[in-house]
Structures are given as C-alpha cells and as structure tokens.
C-alpha cells in the first residue's frame, strides 16, 4: 500500500498538482485505506498541526524580513559589507556573502535574503563584469546561511518537534554559519583571481565608521534576539515579534525609509508567503498522522538497529536522505514528516538532539538551492534571468562548501558546540 501511495505522490507531483495538495491528497487516500480511522482525521490534524505556539514564529520572522527589505535595511548592510570586503579581489561577490551573513542574524528564513540582496547585487555584479554564473550562484548559495546563522525558523520548528533547546540550536548554528561564509569567500577569491574580477578602492576609516554607524541599528538586531532568548527574557516566538517591532521602529523613525502606507503591502506579502509554507505544513501533519498509524517510527528504529550498527553510518544516511527530500520539499514539512521517525533511533545511538538538529537543518538548507524545488535557487535564477539548469551548475561548487562544513559538524560536533557551551553550559 505504501508503495502505491508513493507512486500516486510522484504522479500527481509530475503532472503539476501543487505539492501541498499532493501531500494532502496522499494523506486522505492513505487514511481511507485504514479501515479503523475515520477520514475526518485529515481535517482535524490539519488544524492540530498548526495549533502550536512555536509556529507563529514563522510569519513573524517573515514579517521582520519584509520590513527590513521595505525599509531598505538590506541596502545599508550592503554598503557596509562592501566597504569592508570591497577592496579584496571579487569584492562585490564577497560583499554578497558577508551581507547574507549579516542578514541571517536578523532574519529567520533565507528567501527574503535572496530576494532583497539579489535584486540589488545581481545587476550591479553584472555591470561590473562578473559572469552570470558567479552573480546568481553566489547570491543563491550564500543565502543558505539564513537558516543556519540564528535566528532560524527551521531551528524553532525542530526544537518544537524534539524538545531540544532553541537557545542551544541557535548558538550551535553560529560557527557553522560563519565557516560556510568564510569557505565561500575563499572559493570566490580563487575564482576572482583566475578571472581577474575587479576590486574596489580601500575606503577611508572615517567613511567606514560612518557606514558602520548607519548599519549599526540593524546589526544590533541579532544581539537583541539571541540575548533575549538566552537570558530567558522572551521565548523564540516572542523574539520574532520583538524583531519585527524593532525593525519597524528603526526603519520608521531612524532611517525614515518606511511609511504607514507601506504596511498593507508588507502585511499581505507576509500573509502570502507564510500561508504557503504553513498550508504545506498542515497537509504534512495529516500525512505524518498516517505514518504514525503505520507506526513507522518503531519500524525505522528496528530497521536501523538491526541493519546499521554505527552512528556515523546512521548520520550519513540521514544526510543523504534529507538531501534527497530537500530537492522537492520545504524544510518545515520535511522535518514535520521525518524528524519524529528518525528521532528515537538518533537517541538510541546516543546523539544529542541539538546535534541531530544542526545536521538536519544544514542538510535541508542545501535543499534551498537544489532543483527542482529550491526556492532560493528559483528566486536568484529569476532575478538573474538565467535557466534553472545553468543556475544549478553555478551553485554546485558552493554546495560543496556547505557539505564540507556539514561533515565537520556531523563528525566533529565539538566545533559547533564550542559557542553554546561557552555562553550557556546549562543548556547541555
């Protein structure tokens, strides 16, 4: 039966039925085939799947990112990043990465970064003679750090699914996120020297300081968010609301880039973007329900125990599996569906849930730039007016960087855990 459902899933997906509905239809038909469960369970679990306080962080962080883009904070960050790394060969590409890392400290998602930064940097990179591959590739690939550097919507969801500490996950994402950024910059430098990309003139200290002051309120956001959560001042969900208010105030009264009349559009965009992924999540909850009636968690645990004896092999399988799932599914529904199934096995192997979370989230971040369903790749390709195939070829070298850091985190977790243990040993 499971096999037929899988076929149905693939066929519906192939003929172009929206993927959230494909998930819902498979859940509905699956429940139909279990004689002892009423079909109304599907409608019920769609609501129950959304009935969780942590999920409210999703629209709130999207709201914060939309406010940043409308308030042109992205531009301030770009100017500041350019002043720092512009003088290096391939300066614009370096700035692209650096600004994504800064943006990641405010935003919990990646798409807003691709859109906001890409719209500005892809055209200007092309004007300065960068080839399309580099401009689109760097833009898409560097925005993956959006969900790895805290705050991060997937981390909040993961914490909600496993009772892992949000604070520990957030802190654990800092080092891997920075390493990915640095790795990409090294790669860019090599390419830039080979293709003789331009570099900017060094900026005077005084000018640099002015630009820093200009970007400072935006750069303060991560400190407020992370500090507030770690110190127990507010929860992760509340932090998202605080981030929105803070961004709105800064843009309206400090930068004066945001007006009241901008709000209806910002609110609509927020509603639109978040309801798309959350509706998929609701459908995934129904499918997850079906899997729990089949007791797939216990089955998976038995399978891994009998066939896979070692933790490292288990980790490799998880990475391969989520790489595959990430090609056609968003991180949130993917986690809702599969994390409950692998969690018991991971605990059995003695893995810390925070460690598992970092691995899963970094792997699914790669899904943001792998076709057919990689939102950041699609966005960047659209902005750069390049085909998906060509864009994917362009991001492959950068995916390798993320993979290398991922393997580090997977097998040398002490590295990722250094910061959380330093700041807050009680989390472990």
């Amino acid at each position, binding site marked *: 039966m499971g096999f037929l459902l899988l076929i149905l899933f693939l066929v519906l997906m192939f003929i172009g039925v929206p993927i959230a509905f494909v998930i819902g239809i498979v859940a509905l038909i699956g429940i139909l085939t279990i*004689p*002892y*469960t*009423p079909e*109304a*369970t599907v409608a*019920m679990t769609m609501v*129950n799947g959304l009935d969780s*306080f942590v999920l409210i962080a999703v629209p709130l962080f999207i709201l914060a990112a939309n406010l940043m883009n409308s308030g042109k904070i992205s531009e301030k960050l770009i100017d500041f990043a350019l002043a720092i790394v512009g003088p290096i060969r391939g300066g614009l590409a370096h700035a692209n990465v650096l600004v994504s890392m800064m943006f990641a400290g405010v935003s919990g998602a990646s798409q807003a970064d691709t859109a906001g930064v890409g719209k500005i940097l892809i055209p200007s990179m092309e004007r300065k003679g960068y080839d399309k591959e580099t401009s689109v590739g760097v833009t898409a690939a560097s925005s993956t750090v959006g969900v790895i550097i805290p705050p991060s919507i997937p981390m909040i969801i993961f914490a909600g699914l496993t*009772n892992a*500490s949000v*604070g520990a996950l957030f802190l654990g994402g800092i080092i891997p996120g920075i390493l990915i950024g640095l790795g990409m910059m090294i790669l860019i430098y090599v390419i830039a020297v080979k293709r003789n990309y331009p570099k900017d003139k060094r900026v005077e200290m005084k000018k640099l300081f002015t630009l820093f002051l200009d970007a400072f309120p935006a750069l303060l956001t991560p400190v407020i968010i992370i500090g507030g959560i770690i*110190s*127990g001042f507010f*929860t992760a969900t509340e932090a998202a609301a605080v981030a929105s208010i803070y961004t709105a105030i800064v843009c309206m009264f400090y930068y004066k880039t945001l007006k009241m009349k901008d709000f209806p559009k910002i609110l609509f965009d927020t509603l639109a973007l978040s309801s798309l992924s959350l509706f998929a999540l609701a459908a995934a909850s129904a499918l997850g*329900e079906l899997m*729990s*009636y089949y*007791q797939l*968690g*216990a089955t998976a645990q038995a399978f891994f125990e009998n066939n896979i004896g070692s933790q490292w092999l288990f980790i490799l399988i998880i990475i391969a599996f989520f790489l595959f799932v990430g090609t056609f599914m968003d991180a949130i529904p993917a986690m809702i569906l599969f994390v409950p199934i692998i969690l018991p096995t991971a605990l059995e192997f003695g893995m810390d849930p925070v460690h598992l979370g970092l691995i899963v989230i970094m792997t699914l971040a790669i899904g943001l730039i792998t076709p057919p369903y990689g939102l950041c790749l699609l966005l960047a390709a659209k902005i750069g007016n390049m085909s998906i195939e060509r864009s994917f070829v362009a991001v492959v070298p950068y995916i390798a960087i993320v993979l290398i850091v991922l393997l580090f985190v997977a097998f040398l977790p002490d590295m990722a855990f250094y910061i959380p243990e330093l700041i807050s040993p*009680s*989390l472990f």
Partner: protein
Amino acid sequence: NDELEEEEDGTLKIIAAHNQTSPDNPYQAGLLKFKEVVEEESDGAIEVEVHAGTIGTEEDELVEKLQLGAADVVVVSPGFMTQTGIREVDLFSAPYLFNDYEHWLRTVDGEVGEEMAQIINEKSDNSFKLLGYWSAGTRHYYGKQPVESTEDMRGLSFRTQTSGVVSDFWTEVGAIPSGISWGELYQGLQQDVVDSSENAYPFFVQQSHHTTPNGQYISETAHDYTTRFLLINGERFDNLDENQQQIVSEAAEASVETEREVTLEQDEEYKQQAIEEGAEVNEVNREPFIEIAQPILDDFAEEIEVEEMLEKIRALAEE
C-alpha cells in the same frame, strides 16, 4: 463509523493511546496489561494496538480522536475533559480534595466514582464511557527553598496551572502562578525564570528538575492525589457483543490494578533517586493548606454544580 472495524481475517482491532512517549511510564504498563488481557481472553479475536504518544502527545488531541473514532481507548486528565463541555470532572483536579491515597481510592472506586462515570457518559452523549480510574501519582511542591508553612510560599513564582481552581488556590496561599511550558521548565528552573514548580516524583525527576538550583528542595505538600480517566468510545463499546464487553471490562480492571501499582512503585523509586542525587525532601504539615483550600473548594463546587458530590467525598475522609 460506530463499529470497531473488522480486519480481513475477522479480528477486531482496538486502538489504545496515551500521551507519554517514555516506554517505562505507568500508562504504558497499564495499556499493555489491557492489551494482554483482551488478547488472551478473546483468544486473539480482538487485537489491541497501543500507541505511546505516537498518535498524539497532547491530551486534547487524544480526546478529539476518541470522539471522532480515530482512537478507541485513551487516557486523559480531568483538566482536558472539561474542555469537551463536561465541567463536573474538573472537581477531581481541585487541590486538597483528598486527605490521602486511601481517601482517593474510596472515592473513585465507590459511589462517587460511579456517579462521575455516569455524568461523563451522559454529558458526552455516549461518546465517552469510563473504563476505570488511573493515577498519575501524588503532586508535591519543589523549589529554591523548602516549604514548611504557607508563609514560605508567599511571593514565590510557581509553575502551575494559571487558571481555574488550582490557580485560585495557590494565589490565595500567596504564590504567583506562572505559565511555562513543560518543555521549557528545566531551563526556567536553572536560569531563575521561575522559583518553584509542582508535580509528582516520576515526572519531574525524569526531567532532572531536582538537580536545578530552583528545584532542589522538595516539600511533600501532597496537594493532589491525581486522577486519570481510562475512556473508551461509548458507541463502539455498545456495538460489541456481551462477551466482548465482558472481556474489555475485565481487561480494564486488570489495567487499573497494574497502572496504580506501577505508579506507586515509581513514586517511591523516583523519590529515592531524587534524594540520592542530592535533593532535600521534607514533610509538610498539610493542615494550614487544607484550611485555605476548603472555602475555595466550596465555591468551585457551587460553580460547577457538584456540591453534593463534594459533600460525599468529604464524608469519605472520615472513615
């Protein structure tokens, strides 16, 4: 959809579920006993599938599934039952309703228990039928300082229910009820977000709350001899033949015995573990607490219209 479904080979299937994911939880022991007896007595004609948190880790979800028929047997606490519109059951979650464990036993296993079972069945239009009363242990205070009198509670922020009779009681004692989710409580106690909490030994010791600075002093306030309802979907029960009903009732009885036994054992076992791991336990003179509770219980019983039942329960304390 009122009948238990027959599998292809003619066997009936019962989906039984509780919300605890840990396999050595008393609920799991209880439902496994239920399964064992049902399957043995029916010679395998009825199969029981036990779900430990897999089809819902939230009790309200389980109650909804029971009503809808997506689960046949579930375990729930009084607080969640009230949300289905049956307010009377909330009496069993009121603080200091019972003097001791024996008092609780006399209540639920006697006339009062039967009366409550009837209320549940009638008010839910036969969606829920009570199979037995389980226990989730005895709840005590634990916090950053030992509590010996009601005075010691004054001004302490205290993780407990933030609404209803439980909250009213602790507010009257002088504590400040605060709502922190169970998952965030360990960190909350560790980082001084909240001064104290309350629960039964197995639950908070498994979460290591007793190892935190704000959880190391355990004072045995015994404010709640907890009740859990083992429920079956009434319509499905009625559709079983007499013999099958008999089997289910017998299995429920056996499960009640097992579950209570395991709960008592674990209460003691985890208390010892807490002491071994450095927590300090003190006994509390409950009289002053009981005195504060009485008028609150009176008002509450009036509000949910169970004054007579409250009197009956009080009368049982004297025996």
